[in-house]
């Protein structure tokens, strides 16, 4: 089927030509994001190798570092690879804010129920 909506006005159509400089800038951005994500992953793996799991606060701090770095990486993937960053601000917020609220809810429910299970287990022994 002929999709003239895509052919006329879309940047993915064949007649959407980028200039040479624009092409250079786009490729440069792809490499930059790849390097950023690789460096973050390398840091995470390095920390995982260096530090031992324990009940101590150090490990808790490291866990939260992992979580923050992961959210940072996820943000980069969504904004850059999935092109959400190219959208208007309102659409971007409409996608991201519900997710953010839902993730907070998920974390709350996971911690609450996890502790409840833990407490039950202690109670019945």
């Amino acid at each position, binding site marked *: 089927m002929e*999709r003239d909506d*895509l052919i006329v006005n879309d940047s993915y159509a064949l007649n959407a030509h980028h200039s040479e400089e624009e092409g250079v800038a786009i490729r440069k951005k792809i490499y930059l994001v790849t390097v950023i994500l690789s460096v973050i992953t390398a840091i995470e793996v390095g920390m995982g190798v260096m530090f031992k799991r324990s009940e101590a606060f150090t490990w808790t701090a490291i866990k939260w570092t992992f979580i923050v770095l992961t959210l940072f990486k996820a943000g980069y993937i969504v904004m850059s690879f999935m092109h959400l960053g190219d959208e208007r601000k309102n659409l971007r917020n409409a996608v991201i804010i519900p997710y953010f609220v839902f993730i907070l809810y998920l974390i709350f429910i996971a911690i609450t129920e996890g502790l409840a299970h833990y407490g039950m287990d202690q109670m019945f*022994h």
Partner: protein
Amino acid sequence: MEMHIQDPLTVPISEDGGHVVLTELGDHPHEAHLHSLRINKYIEDETELEGDAMMTLWNARSENFSFGAPIPGLGADWGGINHSEYATQQGYSNFFFFITGFHGFHVFSGVIINLVVFLMVLNRVMERRKHYEMVEKVGLYWHFVDLVWVFVFTFFYLI
């Protein structure tokens, strides 16, 4: 259910006498008995268990499949999550293989779809359609799988 610990280094796993030897008790030995959630961290190499002890361990684990029904040969205990420490461990491996299994399936199909779209581009299908939207859609799917992996990696492998 009350647990009777005769020896601080052993924990009975069922009423007919099986014991599992603990190798590490941490800073507060008495807590090892209470915090049975953590017990699977401290179990000695299971291949060391033989005969009755091994069968007891096997039964204690199998019990979790019974969803509350008593299992013949295990006494009057109700099945399901009661005194068995392996409930948690079982739940964890179910969860782990559920998540990684589905992710593996997504990766597999993603590779196939990427390959298909690559062959389509090579065959100039997009030129005939006059737009590259399918490449963009497949890219979006692949980055969704990537996004899932970022979280699976952190929460199952790093933490």
